Protein backbone atom coordinates (compact mmCIF):
# COMPACT_ATOMS: atom_id res chain seq x y z
CA UNK A 1 0.00 0.00 0.00
CA UNK A 2 1.21 3.48 -0.71
CA UNK A 3 -0.14 6.99 -0.88
CA UNK A 4 0.58 9.92 -3.13
CA UNK A 5 1.20 13.43 -1.84
CA UNK A 6 1.67 16.67 -3.73
CA UNK A 7 4.94 18.34 -2.79
CA UNK A 8 5.53 22.06 -3.36
CA UNK A 9 8.86 23.86 -3.53
CA UNK A 10 9.15 27.61 -3.11
CA UNK A 11 11.76 30.29 -3.71
CA UNK A 12 15.30 29.00 -3.05
CA UNK A 13 14.05 25.40 -2.75
CA UNK A 14 12.33 25.65 -6.10
CA UNK A 15 15.62 26.86 -7.59
CA UNK A 16 17.53 23.99 -5.93
CA UNK A 17 15.12 21.29 -7.04
CA UNK A 18 14.33 22.80 -10.43
CA UNK A 19 10.60 22.26 -9.99
CA UNK A 20 7.81 23.98 -8.16
CA UNK A 21 5.68 20.92 -7.57
CA UNK A 22 5.89 17.17 -7.83
CA UNK A 23 3.83 14.14 -6.90
CA UNK A 24 5.62 11.74 -4.57
CA UNK A 25 4.61 8.23 -3.54
CA UNK A 26 5.28 7.26 0.06
CA UNK A 27 4.42 4.18 2.09
CA UNK A 28 1.10 4.01 3.91
CA UNK A 29 1.60 5.57 7.34
CA UNK A 30 4.64 7.58 6.27
CA UNK A 31 5.43 10.76 8.16
CA UNK A 32 6.81 14.09 7.05
CA UNK A 33 10.23 12.82 8.08
CA UNK A 34 9.85 9.72 5.90
CA UNK A 35 8.95 11.87 2.91
CA UNK A 36 12.04 14.05 3.31
CA UNK A 37 14.27 10.97 3.70
CA UNK A 38 12.66 9.38 0.64
CA UNK A 39 13.23 12.45 -1.50
CA UNK A 40 16.81 13.07 -0.39
CA UNK A 41 17.47 9.38 -1.02
CA UNK A 42 16.93 10.03 -4.70
CA UNK A 43 20.22 11.97 -4.78
CA UNK A 44 20.68 15.14 -6.82
CA UNK A 45 19.04 17.59 -6.94
CA UNK A 46 17.05 16.57 -3.85
CA UNK A 47 20.14 16.16 -1.73
CA UNK A 48 20.45 19.94 -1.91
CA UNK A 49 17.41 20.25 0.33
CA UNK A 50 18.24 20.45 4.04
CA UNK A 51 17.76 17.39 6.21
CA UNK A 52 15.30 19.26 8.38
CA UNK A 53 13.42 21.77 6.26
CA UNK A 54 10.38 23.59 7.59
CA UNK A 55 7.33 21.82 6.20
CA UNK A 56 3.68 22.73 5.93
CA UNK A 57 1.08 20.02 5.49
CA UNK A 58 -2.15 21.31 4.01
CA UNK A 59 -1.04 24.89 4.64
CA UNK A 60 -0.18 24.47 8.31
CA UNK A 61 3.34 24.12 9.71
CA UNK A 62 3.89 20.50 10.68
CA UNK A 63 6.39 18.61 12.80
CA UNK A 64 8.55 15.80 11.43
CA UNK A 65 6.32 13.18 13.00
CA UNK A 66 3.14 14.31 11.29
CA UNK A 67 1.57 11.38 9.39
CA UNK A 68 0.71 11.90 5.73
CA UNK A 69 -2.41 10.87 3.86
CA UNK A 70 -3.04 10.48 0.19
CA UNK A 71 -3.74 13.85 -1.42
CA UNK A 72 -1.94 15.91 1.20
CA UNK A 73 -0.27 19.11 0.04
CA UNK A 74 3.24 19.09 1.51
CA UNK A 75 5.19 22.32 1.10
CA UNK A 76 8.92 22.73 1.61
CA UNK A 77 9.27 26.16 3.19
CA UNK A 78 12.66 27.89 2.92
CA UNK A 79 13.54 30.41 5.62
CA UNK A 80 10.89 33.12 5.27
CA UNK A 81 11.53 36.80 4.57
CA UNK A 82 8.22 38.62 4.43
CA UNK A 83 7.50 42.13 5.56
Amino acid at each position, binding site marked *: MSCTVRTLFF*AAYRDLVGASEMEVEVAEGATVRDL*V*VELRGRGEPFLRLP*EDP*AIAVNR*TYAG*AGEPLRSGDEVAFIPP*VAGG
Partner: protein
Amino acid sequence: MVTYAAVVHDPIDPGSVLARVGHPEDGAALLFVGVVRNHAEGRAVRGMRYDAYEEMAAQVLRAIADEAARALGTDRIAVVHRVGELSLGETSVAVAVSSPHRAEAYAASRYVIEEIKKRLPVWKREHYEDGGQAWVQGVTPTPTVPISGGGE
Protein backbone atom coordinates in the same frame (compact mmCIF):
# COMPACT_ATOMS: atom_id res chain seq x y z
CA MET B 1 -13.12 42.28 17.28
CA VAL B 2 -12.76 42.78 13.56
CA THR B 3 -9.69 41.71 11.62
CA TYR B 4 -8.85 41.89 7.95
CA ALA B 5 -5.96 40.09 6.27
CA ALA B 6 -5.07 39.82 2.59
CA VAL B 7 -2.23 38.90 0.26
CA VAL B 8 -2.48 41.04 -2.86
CA HIS B 9 -0.81 41.50 -6.24
CA ASP B 10 -1.84 45.09 -6.86
CA PRO B 11 -0.17 48.09 -5.22
CA ILE B 12 -1.15 48.74 -1.60
CA ASP B 13 -2.64 52.08 -0.64
CA PRO B 14 -1.67 52.41 3.05
CA GLY B 15 -4.39 54.97 3.69
CA SER B 16 -7.08 52.54 2.66
CA VAL B 17 -5.65 49.91 5.03
CA LEU B 18 -5.75 52.48 7.85
CA ALA B 19 -9.32 53.29 6.88
CA ARG B 20 -10.31 49.68 7.66
CA VAL B 21 -9.70 50.22 11.37
CA GLY B 22 -11.02 52.82 13.76
CA HIS B 23 -14.10 52.76 15.92
CA PRO B 24 -15.89 55.37 18.07
CA GLU B 25 -14.38 53.77 21.18
CA ASP B 26 -10.84 53.91 19.84
CA GLY B 27 -8.51 56.74 20.76
CA ALA B 28 -5.42 55.48 18.98
CA ALA B 29 -4.66 54.18 15.52
CA LEU B 30 -1.29 53.02 14.27
CA LEU B 31 -0.23 52.31 10.70
CA PHE B 32 2.98 50.49 9.89
CA VAL B 33 4.19 50.60 6.31
CA GLY B 34 7.05 48.48 4.99
CA VAL B 35 8.58 49.81 1.79
CA VAL B 36 11.28 48.60 -0.58
CA ARG B 37 14.45 50.49 0.26
CA ASN B 38 17.44 51.21 -1.94
CA HIS B 39 20.04 49.25 -0.02
CA ALA B 40 20.56 45.92 1.75
CA GLU B 41 23.66 45.09 3.72
CA GLY B 42 25.70 47.64 1.89
CA ARG B 43 24.53 46.74 -1.62
CA ALA B 44 22.52 49.09 -3.79
CA VAL B 45 19.11 47.62 -4.56
CA ARG B 46 16.95 48.57 -7.53
CA GLY B 47 13.90 46.42 -6.84
CA MET B 48 12.54 43.34 -5.15
CA ARG B 49 10.42 40.35 -6.06
CA TYR B 50 8.15 38.91 -3.39
CA ASP B 51 7.15 35.27 -3.81
CA ALA B 52 4.59 33.64 -1.56
CA TYR B 53 2.84 30.38 -0.86
CA GLU B 54 -0.25 32.43 -1.36
CA GLU B 55 -3.00 30.18 -0.05
CA MET B 56 -1.07 29.49 3.14
CA ALA B 57 0.15 33.08 3.50
CA ALA B 58 -3.41 34.37 3.53
CA GLN B 59 -4.28 31.91 6.31
CA VAL B 60 -1.18 32.70 8.36
CA LEU B 61 -1.75 36.43 8.02
CA ARG B 62 -5.30 36.05 9.28
CA ALA B 63 -4.12 33.87 12.18
CA ILE B 64 -1.52 36.46 13.18
CA ALA B 65 -4.08 39.26 13.13
CA ASP B 66 -6.55 37.22 15.17
CA GLU B 67 -3.90 36.31 17.75
CA ALA B 68 -2.92 39.95 18.14
CA ALA B 69 -6.50 41.05 18.53
CA ARG B 70 -7.31 38.38 21.09
CA ALA B 71 -4.13 38.59 23.12
CA LEU B 72 -3.59 42.32 23.12
CA GLY B 73 -7.03 43.78 23.60
CA THR B 74 -7.14 45.64 20.32
CA ASP B 75 -10.46 45.59 18.62
CA ARG B 76 -9.49 46.25 15.02
CA ILE B 77 -6.56 45.04 12.93
CA ALA B 78 -6.05 45.12 9.17
CA VAL B 79 -2.98 43.73 7.44
CA VAL B 80 -2.17 43.51 3.74
CA HIS B 81 0.95 41.98 2.22
CA ARG B 82 1.89 42.39 -1.41
CA VAL B 83 3.56 39.86 -3.70
CA GLY B 84 5.14 40.21 -7.14
CA GLU B 85 7.66 42.66 -8.55
CA LEU B 86 8.04 45.83 -6.47
CA SER B 87 9.93 49.00 -7.29
CA LEU B 88 11.86 51.11 -4.82
CA GLY B 89 9.58 52.97 -2.46
CA GLU B 90 6.60 50.71 -3.07
CA THR B 91 4.73 49.32 -0.10
CA SER B 92 5.30 45.64 0.62
CA VAL B 93 3.19 45.44 3.77
CA ALA B 94 0.78 47.65 5.69
CA VAL B 95 -0.48 46.93 9.20
CA ALA B 96 -3.21 49.09 10.72
CA VAL B 97 -4.44 48.75 14.30
CA SER B 98 -6.85 50.76 16.38
CA SER B 99 -7.67 50.46 20.05
CA PRO B 100 -9.06 52.48 22.92
CA HIS B 101 -5.56 53.23 24.26
CA ARG B 102 -2.20 53.54 22.54
CA ALA B 103 -0.21 50.90 24.44
CA GLU B 104 -2.32 48.10 22.98
CA ALA B 105 -2.07 49.57 19.50
CA TYR B 106 1.73 49.65 19.60
CA ALA B 107 1.93 46.14 21.06
CA ALA B 108 -0.43 44.67 18.48
CA SER B 109 1.21 46.44 15.56
CA ARG B 110 4.63 45.21 16.60
CA TYR B 111 3.33 41.69 17.20
CA VAL B 112 1.86 41.49 13.72
CA ILE B 113 4.98 42.66 11.91
CA GLU B 114 7.33 40.50 14.01
CA GLU B 115 5.21 37.39 13.44
CA ILE B 116 5.09 38.14 9.72
CA LYS B 117 8.88 38.09 9.69
CA LYS B 118 8.93 34.79 11.60
CA ARG B 119 6.12 32.81 10.02
CA LEU B 120 4.64 34.22 6.85
CA PRO B 121 5.55 31.96 3.89
CA VAL B 122 6.89 34.82 1.78
CA TRP B 123 10.35 35.18 0.22
CA LYS B 124 12.06 38.08 -1.39
CA ARG B 125 14.57 38.25 -4.15
CA GLU B 126 16.64 41.40 -4.30
CA HIS B 127 17.62 42.87 -7.64
CA TYR B 128 20.88 44.75 -7.24
CA GLU B 129 22.06 47.83 -9.07
CA ASP B 130 25.05 45.85 -10.36
CA GLY B 131 22.71 43.41 -12.12
CA GLY B 132 22.96 40.53 -9.65
CA GLN B 133 20.10 39.14 -7.63
CA ALA B 134 19.70 36.89 -4.61
CA TRP B 135 17.14 35.49 -2.22
CA VAL B 136 17.13 37.47 1.01
CA GLN B 137 18.40 35.38 3.90
CA GLY B 138 15.34 34.51 5.94
CA VAL B 139 14.19 33.08 9.23
CA THR B 140 13.36 29.40 9.66
CA PRO B 141 9.76 29.14 10.75
CA THR B 142 8.92 26.74 13.58
CA PRO B 143 8.13 23.92 14.08
CA THR B 144 11.21 22.61 12.31
CA VAL B 145 11.51 19.01 11.25
CA PRO B 146 14.23 17.18 13.23
CA ILE B 147 14.83 14.66 10.47
CA SER B 148 18.03 13.30 11.96
CA GLY B 149 16.50 12.54 15.38
CA GLY B 150 14.74 9.23 15.97
CA GLY B 151 11.10 8.90 16.95
CA GLU B 152 8.86 11.93 17.34
